[in-house]
């Protein structure tokens, strides 16, 4: 057993870290996040062309660097450490995950090249975190399909060229059977979006399908049989989020330790107060356990119970580290100008993405303790 990274993996991490230190410091990130688009085409292009990281997690036959989920984890950790808003999770981890699942070599090539960006439209206003809860329907017509429905808070839809959409082709609203998956250009007729920024600095859209007609080739896999693939790719995304959380927590810890060593009250650096020391030790332990759980879960993919365990442990850690990082900064911690609050906001949103801590604890119970 070893926890070492290969040379290529180390190289991916190092070049990405260097690039982000250079081109994506907190101020640059804020500028990008607050621009009208809310993300940077230049950065994405650099990911594709200068760094080549968009291909890190794909096999060589598919044009990638020969990696897999470990590469995704490495990239996502840096995404978390630098609060990157560009759509790596949506496009590479999720979009690429479906492409891998369904052997879409051409799509992978376009993802690696940076020209295709994907948003995953799964959530619905009434569905909460149930992946199979679909009021959005896909009805067969003239050899193709007609999509109707409303998808809620679709992350990265504003920057996407394509959507991967879950829609029901048969069955009742929450049935596992009848879940189908479609890949379509975002500018398909009948698809409209309402774009907006998110509290954590990202962007999303409400996506509406009004009798949007797609050809049969838009269907991924077999009609009605996509639930398993959706779960699998979402678990990969969950592990990606866990890795993002590790970067995010470690950075909050670093900011907090640095700040408390600098900040003096009562004539001493506040890092000398034992209550604060113990708090920072607890924050450190949360981050360490988050890293352990992420390594565990990435190695055990596609084991869903392991992904659920990681999400639970890390969700709690995110809340603890985020709240206390702000607390230990005092007033500075709740300002928009200072970085720590923005990490706290992202941490808060990661905790809820694809389901909250409670949701995954319940899921773990069902998978591991009930039959």
């Amino acid at each position: 057993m070893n926890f070492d990274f290969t040379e290529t993996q180390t190289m991916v991490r190092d070049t990405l870290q260097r690039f982000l230190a250079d081109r994506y410091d907190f101020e640059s990130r804020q500028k990008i996040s607050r621009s009208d688009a809310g993300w940077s085409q230049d950065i994405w292009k650099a990911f594709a062309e200068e760094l080549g990281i968009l291909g890190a997690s794909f096999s060589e036959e598919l044009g990638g660097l020969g990696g897999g989920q470990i590469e995704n984890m490495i990239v996502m950790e840096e995404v978390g450490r630098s609060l990157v808003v560009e759509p790596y999770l949506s496009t590479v981890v999720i979009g690429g995950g479906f492409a891998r699942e369904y052997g879409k070599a051409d799509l992978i090539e376009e993802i690696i090249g940076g020209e295709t960006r994907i948003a995953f439209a799964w959530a619905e206003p009434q569905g909460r975190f149930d992946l199979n809860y679909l009021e959005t329907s896909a009805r067969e017509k003239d050899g193709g399909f007609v999509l109707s429905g409303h998808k809620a808070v679709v992350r990265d839809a504003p920057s996407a060229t394509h959507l991967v959409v879950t829609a029901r082709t048969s069955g009742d609203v929450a049935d596992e059977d009848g879940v189908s998956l479609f890949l379509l250009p975002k500018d398909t007729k009948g698809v409209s979006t309402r774009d907006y920024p998110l509290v954590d600095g990202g962007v999303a859209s409400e996506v509406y399908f009004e009798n949007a007609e797609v050809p049969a080739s838009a269907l991924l896999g077999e009609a009605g049989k996509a639930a398993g693939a959706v779960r699998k790719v979402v678990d990969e995304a969950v592990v990606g989020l866990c890795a993002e959380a590790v970067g995010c927590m470690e950075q909050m810890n670093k900011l907090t330790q640095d700040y408390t060593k600098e900040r003096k009250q009562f004539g001493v650096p506040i890092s000398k107060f034992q209550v604060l020391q113990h708090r920072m030790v607890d924050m450190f332990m949360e981050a360490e356990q988050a890293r352990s759980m992420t390594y565990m879960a990435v190695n055990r993919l596609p084991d869903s119970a392991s992904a659920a365990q990681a999400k639970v442990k890390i969700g709690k850690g995110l809340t603890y580290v985020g709240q206390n990082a702000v607390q230990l900064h005092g007033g500075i911690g709740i300002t928009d100008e200072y970085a720590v609050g923005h990490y706290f906001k992202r941490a808060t949103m990661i905790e809820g993405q694809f389901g909250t801590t409670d949701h995954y604890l319940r899921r773990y119970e069902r998978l591991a303790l009930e039959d």
Partner: protein
Amino acid sequence: MDLKFTPEEEAFRTEIRTFIEENYPERLKNAGGREDLGRDDMLAWHQILGEKGWSVPSWPEEYGGTGWTPTQKYIWNEENARANTVPPLPFGVSMVGPVIYTFGTPEQKERFLPGIVAGTTWWCQGYSEPGAGSDLASLKTRAERITDDDGKEYYIVNGQKTWTTLAQHADWGFFLVRTDPDARKPQEGISFLLIDMKTPGITVRPIITLGGEHEVNEVFLDNVKVPVDQRVGKENEGWTCAKFLLAHERSGIAGVARSKVGIERIKDIASTELDEGKPLIENPFFKRKVAELEVDLTALEFTELRTLAGEAAGKGPGPESSVLKIKGTEIQQRIQELVLEAVGHYGAPYFRGYGEGDNEFSIGPDYAQRAAPTYFNGRKTSIYGGSNEIQRGIIAKMVLGL
């Protein structure tokens, strides 16, 4: 021991409830706790209460107080929370007002108290400085006493204050300044000044907080000339006023009544939101969190009632009130966290027009829109007013004698 309300107290409750129903401005319905109201909206209810004679219930009657018993004040808070009214700002009513009627000259009382009672003067609190937060006594803003050409005495104030809440609307501020830099102890040599915010040399700069709000400010004082008769209390003894103020008016600090309303709101939201096709409130995990909150809130409520009873029996609010501050803010923060959890996906959208009168935002249900900013903003409550770490220090030292 009898923990029930008397028939007179119940009648009082009815009177209050009716008054609120009949007089509270329709446009501000349910606006309590909103961080984005303008000056007029923040003052509207205060002004109505001022006319009725109910704006400063805790003050001595000679200055406008109502003479209510602690239980009546408690009922008053409960009914306002129930209606989620916009509460009068604390800076005048709970902070500088009591300092002025306790330490001020007759002229100062006459000049400043009526504006606070009526809700026409907006006050801000100029204590904290970039280098003086928890360690407030280390403040550096300097006030030098001079005699001007007009033969009158003034303080010339130089320095910087920060985190000054809503100073952008303030007419007046109460400031702690250093009048004797050579005093033996940092707490000595501080004076308490009332400063007209329109005085030349004052610059107010916004600090934007996490939810996008403009709620706090930096205040720069550059050769600000303040007449000596705007000092409250003796020169170099301002710390006495500061300490008095910090210990005063602890009733309501726990926020019990508003937290009760907050929990009811969670139940409402969780009855609407669906989880696996059923109302979220039926999810056992979620329900348990609500139950735990209710248990903790009950514990806080009866701790507060005991404190109030002690006050009524003539025991001043002691360091025990730190318990109310810590537990009260922790519960408020947990409520905000649970609201955000309850609203699910629609907690994430954010609209940039915040604070600029943009009410066009209609993504997701109404109750979801402010969930995340309110949660983020709410982290302040364990930081300000003496952080919860500082409060624990006070209990350890003053209550437990450690």
